[in-house]
């Protein structure tokens, strides 16, 4: 596939910063972007993987891809057969001047049985391949303690790691080469967890937990998205999976378990106060502070994340300030209201949050 491996980072340019080519109104465009291979956060550069089904980076995704190749091959043969028969017939059997009535052939049960049985056999082969691949991709789950619990919300993702107690949002970290079990849950409506580069999609359904096995086989950043229509901001419910080596993953996990140091500096301290005064804490949690809300994402280590708003904008001081001032301009309909802050107030809160790593 020619597009395989082509990772374009340059397209973010018009979205990034202040120039917005396509937008007309007061707000800057939601910066849907691809910035995050840049080293803005002091993290190692990571390759942004393609979101193509053909760019399979786990045994599960590869098994699906092989089945898909098999199906495509079958489809190609059948399509070419049908299309060439049709085209041959319409060319060869065109009416010619002076032609008499053609032979009225009412049918031939033997021939017709043949073109019933042959497709049936082909489909039987596909069915066997299907059953085999299902076992490889997502075998039934007997034990139910997952490595990660994925909880979908309108319109963001919450990730809980029950073994270590880590809790994060929108960016799922996974170690390379480990077969992990994900449990999908929903806090409200039906969502769907889909990372094409890593494999199958599974619905996140309220009151009906589902399971998904994933074994990432290449480090990098994998983009995915909610695939079941879930309301106004369904389109901006991005998934970001960061696959790291076991050591890096372990280090990340340790960093998440540490409570970040209280930010210092005038702006950050003002921001911390504002965070508590201006109702932010009603919805968000920051460890070791009075903020205990659980409606929105946990912000204890928000400064560590690559993106904000479930992949809507890159996590920079500038963008975060804009987001705090009016999230409805960036992600219309999202559940975070505009708090009518001044730009300097929003800036202070952003400085505070960016320091939480």
């Amino acid at each position, binding site marked *: 596939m020619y*597009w395989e491996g*082509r990772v*374009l980072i340059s*397209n973010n340019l018009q979205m990034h910063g202040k120039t917005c080519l396509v*937008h007309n*109104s007061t707000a800057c*465009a939601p910066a*849907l972007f*691809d910035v995050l291979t840049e080293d803005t956060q002091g993290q190692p550069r990571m390759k942004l993987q393609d979101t*193509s*089904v053909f760019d399979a980076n786990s045994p599960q995704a590869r098994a*699906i891809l092989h*089945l*898909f190749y098999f*199906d495509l091959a079958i489809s190609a043969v059948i*399509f070419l057969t*049908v299309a060439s*028969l*049709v085209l041959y017939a*319409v060319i060869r*059997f*065109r*009416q010619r001047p002076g032609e008499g*009535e*053609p032979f*009225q*052939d*009412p049918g*031939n*049960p033997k*021939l*017709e049985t043949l*073109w019933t049985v042959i497709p049936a056999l082909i*489909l*039987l082969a*596909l069915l066997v391949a*299907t059953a085999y691949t299902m076992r490889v*991709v997502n075998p*039934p789950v007997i034990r139910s303690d997952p490595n990660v619990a994925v909880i979908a919300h*309108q319109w963001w993702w919450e990730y809980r790691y029950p073994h270590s107690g880590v809790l994060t949002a929108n960016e799922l970290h996974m170690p390379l080469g480990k077969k992990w079990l994900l449990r*999908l849950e929903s806090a*409200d*409506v*039906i969502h769907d967890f*889909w990372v*094409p580069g890593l*494999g199958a*999609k599974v619905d996140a359904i309220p*009151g*009906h937990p*589902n399971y998904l096995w994933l074994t990432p086989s290449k480090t990098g950043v994998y983009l995915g*998205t909610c*695939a*079941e*229509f879930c*309301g*106004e901001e*369904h*389109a901006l419910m991005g998934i970001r999976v960061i696959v790291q080596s076991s050591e890096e993953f372990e280090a990340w996990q340790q960093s998440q378990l540490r409570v970040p140091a209280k930010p210092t500096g005038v702006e950050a301290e003002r921001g911390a106060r504002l965070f508590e005064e201006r109702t932010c804490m009603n919805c968000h949690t920051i460890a070791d502070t009075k903020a205990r809300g659980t409606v929105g994402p946990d912000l204890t280590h928000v400064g560590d994340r690559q993106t904000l708003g479930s992949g809507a904008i890159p996590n920079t001081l500038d963008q975060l300030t804009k987001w705090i001032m009016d999230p409805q301009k960036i992600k219309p*309909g999202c559940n975070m209201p505009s708090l009518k802050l001044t730009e300097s107030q929003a800036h202070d809160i952003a400085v505070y949050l960016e320091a939480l790593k």
Partner: protein
Amino acid sequence: MSEESPANRAITSLADMKEYRGMLSWITSVDHKQIGILYIVSAFVFFLVGLGLALAMRIQLMVPVSHFMSPGAYNQIFTMHGTTMVFLMAMPLLFGFSVYFVPLMIGARDMAFPRLNALGYWLYLFGALMMYFSFVAGGAPDAGWFSYAPLTEKGYSSSPGIDYWALSLLVMGAGSVATGINLIVTVLTLRAPGMTLTRTPLFIWMIFFNAFLVILSLPALNAALVMILADRQLNAHFFSPAHGGSALLWQNYFWLFGHPEVYILVLPAFGVISEVIPVFSRKVIYGYGFLAASTIAIAFLSYGVWIHHMFATGMSYVILYVFAGSSMLIAIPTGIKIFNWIATMWGGSIRFTTAMLFATAFQIQFTVGGLSGVAFAAIPIDWQLTDSYFVVAHIHYVLLGGTLFAMFAGTYYWFPKVTGRLLSEKIGKLHFWLMVLGFNGTFFGMHWLGIAGMPRRAYTYLDRPPLGTLHLISSLFAFVLALAILVFLWNVARSLLKGEVAGDNPWGGWTLEWATTSPPPVENFDRVPSVRGRRPLWDLAHKTEGGQP
């Protein structure tokens, strides 16, 4: 009636029919032909509306991160596009062809219940208008044409859009069931002398089984609709997980209706193709028995495949295996039909009228839609591609490249019968080629979009190759498709104003509708013809004793 024989008749167009003059004659009509025309014209108006909504979506998606419309507006528009095309356009269009041609093709004077027939149409129109009234009554429905609960619960959709959606579908559903019953009884009781069930044209055969699908699948939708209305209006808890309700019950009931519904939309198309291909190939349909039997197989199997819309919801393996098997099984009777149509053309004497062109493109495009459908039956592929643009490509290859192309074949074939005037073949061919280009250009790339990770129903997308390019191509070709429809409108208008007089049987058709005048008189036939085979007019022309089987 004063008309006695075609010779002394001066009626060559609908405008000549004095019984059809005046608004009142249309509003109060119980004539199946007028009701059929009302259905078809209304369906076409809603088709134009649905097309407009589609173009709005294509403009929004032309470039990444577009701000042509807000997410809320986009969600209403894609929901209304799907709802309009399925319930306000496709179903009434098929009903229109059915109630117009079933009595004619079986040699009857009208439907079994003419007043019920009118009721069915007016219920449809009322429901359809109510659906669109929602736009000015607080917001159109915005949860997709299959409106999954619990997104449709009051807590997540507080605007009245979903209520309008459910009520309108209930009203239209009542009309559809009435029409379905009417069609079945008509076929069973009003066939011309000598026309046994196995001598009915395949169009009749398909409509007959289709009507069973209608009356037995719509109640599943109705049950789901009254449940969601109870939840929304009376605070019941059918689909509310917080109170122990099930989020999946809606999906089961909806698709128990929804999958037969897909076949409700394609079986009449199969029927049209099975009429058009033999006439323009000058050959008897190949394997009537297999075609008829495969229709029954499809009708039965269509009730046993609904879970394939729900493979990603986390079902037990036993259920998954069963429904993967049944979903592949249903591909077989469909495949049989394609091969039988090819065999009908084989060795024939093919005339390339516009109708035949549409029927030819149908066969190839429907095959693409069928094959992408089989991909979804292979469950792990479904796990990757369901809810992506691959699905959007698939349904449009089936319903637009398939059903709509077949209905255009039927339109070019039967337009002269209905109006007495021929459509221009020249403009028709322009329409056809623009349509093939516009359709494939718009939708083929969507397979690729799905493979590249584009989820359906998203109002915007990341600026990552190849998404932008593919969306742009699709949007540009959508305008070609719209242009094709304009050409068709021009053709119709031109033909109604100054089209060539068609005569009784311009194509040399063999079924009974061609035995009467164009347009047919109110009573359809001066004398109900007697039938001795499957092709009464062929038998008449060839004087074969006993006729074709």
